[in-house]
């Protein structure tokens, strides 16, 4: 595949490009889904092609094709140059890239158990056993799914980089939906919106033990139909697992993308309240809040060897003892800060130009002990599980989340189930109200496989390591 990529480099350089990178990408996916006791979907998808990114006359151009015949590849490279020349008409100053060592490397993400080698029948049997466990009176829809992806990528740049990377990821989840008299309630395991996903093999699915949670999930969904509605007002909340991961995603991961800050996503995804003047000065959260961007966590969904500019994966500080101290950057944007890229440029396949994306944005474990300790230390609050809805403004300040289930905490003890729990807040105030993050023993990385950004839309797989955390006096119950 390097031959095809190098063909593109040569064609673009001959047409006048001063910098070129070419990515040949082969991506495969398999989905198995079971619903209400029967197979719903057995599907596979394969996508292959080449994307060519060039700088010419100081401006960017990108072109892509799924036809990898020599003539088509060369024509595509020439198109990229023509596009760059059109971009240059509006140029104010030429693009400058921060330096990077031109790496030559191979990075293989070995899954312990290749998920593509697990027979479809075994996957169906597993999901049908979960489905049977969820077959509880009152449940209208039982659903379970497993999916796996394999991506092979050959990256070549005119600076001499030659990188081959393989990435395998596996995901799985179950959910039960109960319905009665105008009310619908859903419970999921291990996370909502499709479950957990990681850069691991079938061993992840085995560890999740989906079938052991089927009955609980279904019983909780039915119980929620008659549970007390979420109280309204201000109270302490404890966020767990995948809900806290999404909180980090929306209120920290997106606002630290430097392209947003510099305005290049202003018309679509939005901007960021973390403007350049706030770097190393804004109190983003309380002193227990420490956040890193870490693309090197083994097995995490946002991990990789090199980004799509050939910059090696890194671990960088984002929030240190509550103070905002770092952005996610690219070769073009990092010089704005007088720094080099920290390796966050990624593209959703061969047909998209890379943009700044989250890696694994991790809330580091704190000194809060175990989840049981947080509950004991809460006089009046809500313990919330699994996301149901999310929304945040285009500067990433005003947010509102809904969860599948909450338990009321009174006097340090669980006091009853709450339906339609929701909370709302303002990002720095909310993180400023964080008074405890659980310790290492509760810390886990959650995969978010559907992060959307860019035009045309790009969907990226990212990760968030979190341990349960408590937030004091948060507004709850707006959307019940």
């Amino acid at each position, binding site marked *: 595949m390097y031959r095809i990529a190098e063909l593109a480099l040569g064609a673009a350089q001959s047409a006048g490009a001063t910098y070129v990178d070419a990515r040949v990408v082969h991506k495969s996916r398999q989905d198995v889904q*079971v619903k209400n006791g029967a*197979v719903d*979907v*057995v*599907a*596979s998808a*394969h*996508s292959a*092609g080449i994307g060519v990114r060039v700088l010419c006359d100081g401006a*960017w*151009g990108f*072109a*892509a*094709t*799924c*036809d*990898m015949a020599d003539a088509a590849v060369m024509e595509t490279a020439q*198109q990229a140059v*023509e596009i*760059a*020349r*059109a*971009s240059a008409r*509006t140029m*104010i100053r030429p693009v400058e890239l921060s330096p990077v060592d031109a790496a030559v490397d191979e990075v293989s993400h070995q899954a312990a158990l290749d998920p593509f080698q697990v027979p*479809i*029948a075994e996957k*169906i049997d597993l999901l*049908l056993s979960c489905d049977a466990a969820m077959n509880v009176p009152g449940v*209208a*829809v039982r659903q379970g799914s497993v999916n796996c992806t394999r991506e092979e990528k050959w990256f070549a740049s005119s600076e001499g980089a030659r990188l081959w990377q393989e990435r395998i990821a596996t995901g799985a989840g179950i959910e039960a*939906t109960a*319905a009665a008299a*105008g009310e*619908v309630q859903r419970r999921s395991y291990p996370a909502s919106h499709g479950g957990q996903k990681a850069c691991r093999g079938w061993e992840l699915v085995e560890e999740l033990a989906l079938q052991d949670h089927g009955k609980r999930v279904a019983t909780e969904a039915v119980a929620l139909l008659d549970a007390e509605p979420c109280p309204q007002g201000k109270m302490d909340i404890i966020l767990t697992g995948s809900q806290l991961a999404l909180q980090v995603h929306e209120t920290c991961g997106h606002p630290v993308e430097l392209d947003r800050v*510099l*305005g*290049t996503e*202003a*018309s679509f995804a*939005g901007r960021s309240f973390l403007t350049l003047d706030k770097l190393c000065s804004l109190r983003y959260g309380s002193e227990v809040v420490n956040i890193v961007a870490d693309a090197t966590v083994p097995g995490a969904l946002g991990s990789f060897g090199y980004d799509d500019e050939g910059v090696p994966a890194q671990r960088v500080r984002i929030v240190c003892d509550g103070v905002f101290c770092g952005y996610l950057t690219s070769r073009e944007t990092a010089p704005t800060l007088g720094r080099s890229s920290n390796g966050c440029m990624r593209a959703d396949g061969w*047909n998209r130009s890379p*943009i700044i994306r989250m890696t694994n944005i991790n809330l580091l474990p704190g000194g809060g002990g175990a989840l049981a300790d947080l509950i004991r230390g809460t006089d009046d609050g809500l313990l919330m599980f699994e996301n149901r*809805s*999310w*929304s945040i*403004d*285009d*500067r990433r*300040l*005003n947010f*509102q989340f*809904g969860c599948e289930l909450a338990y009321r905490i009174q006097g340090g003890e669980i006091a009853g189930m709450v339906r*339609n729990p929701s909370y*709302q807040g303002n990002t720095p105030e909310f993180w400023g109200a964080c008074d405890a993050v659980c310790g290492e023993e509760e810390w886990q990385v959650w995969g978010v496989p559907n992060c959307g950004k860019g*035009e*045309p839309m790009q969907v990226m797989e990212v990760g968030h390591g979190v341990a349960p955390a408590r937030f004091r006096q948060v*507004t709850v119950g*707006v*959307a019940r």
Partner: protein
Amino acid sequence: MEQELLELAQTIVSECQADQAEAVVQDGTEAVSRFANNVLHQNMQEWSRRIDVRVLLGKRVGCASGTVADLDDARRVVAKATELARVAGEIPDFESFAEPQPIPEAPPAVAEDVIQCTPAQRGALVEEALDVARERSLAAAGALSVRSGTLTVANSLGVAAVHSSTATHFHVVMQDEDSAGYASAEGRSLADTRVREVAERAADKATLGRNPRHIKAEPLAVVLEPVAAAELLDMFSFGFNALLYQEQKSFVCDYLGQQACTSFLNLTDDGLDPRTNVRPFDFEGLPRRRVELIKDGAISGLVHNTYTAARAKPPTQSTGHATQPPGRWGPLPRNLIVSPGEGSLEDLIARVDRGLFISRIHYLNYVHPRKTILTGMTREGTFLIEQGQITGAVHNLRFTERFVDALGRIAAIGCKGERHGSVWTPPLLIESFSFTSETEF
């Protein structure tokens, strides 16, 4: 090209040894020129050809898709789908792929200026918007998108449908120190993007938006510009999906046949209406039938694909709203039209004693789909209306609203509509809309 794609689909379907086979070919070019800070900063073009194949063996269905450059690539996709069908479990209530039906003649859907559009032409159009920004000392951000493509569907029962179309979209945010204004336009030709006019509208909003005031979040009357109305209606329309209805997840379960909305609200889905992105058939190759979803304020219809139609009680016919295979989310309306009312946008504003004019909505999401509770933010052009006139800009607000109830509080529908995404709608005046929190910008 259309004949070549149809032959490709029919060839692989006819070669397949399964009980039934279906092929969907999507071939097209997309180009997007993105600009920000008055500079083109991302500029791309892509060509792709993708085939989705479904194969039926008994009651087992295998689905495979792939990018293809030639017939051999396409044959590999068929082989994969067949391999999966052999090991897939049975879908007890799956009957058959679609039987062929006549496809009605569609209005013209291809604009030659899109087919011929070069990167330099796109750049020149974007420069028109940048000129407006520079003249007004504003910073522009946005995108110009042009697409041309062909959708082909064939199956072993005789379905053979092919349709080519073009689409264009231009949107821009004009930004000042403490304000921003949004405007957009779309259609099938470059002329439909009306770049300079759209840029001027966005710039006017940015200028009018200076020195925004803070107002308390509370129920207020709203005038929704077509963009904002379309975003809400698009999200709301998911509830007309027959699969969600059959699974008891849709609000239609609680409202079918009931007078839930204002009596003069009519919402239809019509794939042949030239005000929308014309789609004469769906991803099963069946004609998209006109469906009245809300008739004179009553919730009156659902959209079906072959699968949901067969499961309906009593069974019914597909309305031609199947989505891309494997179609796990069920059928969706994608050509929505709100029947126009009377009066201009200014007339709607004149009817408001105190309320908000909303240009655009951000991060809309369901809080509770069955109850149609939606939350989202206003964005880039939120103005206070007092005694029938816009009196200035306000900081953005969050709303949390049971949308089916809001449709019951429509006081007026404008006479002039616009297409935005899957929806053609005039502006709407809603007597009361629940705003629940505030921002400082």
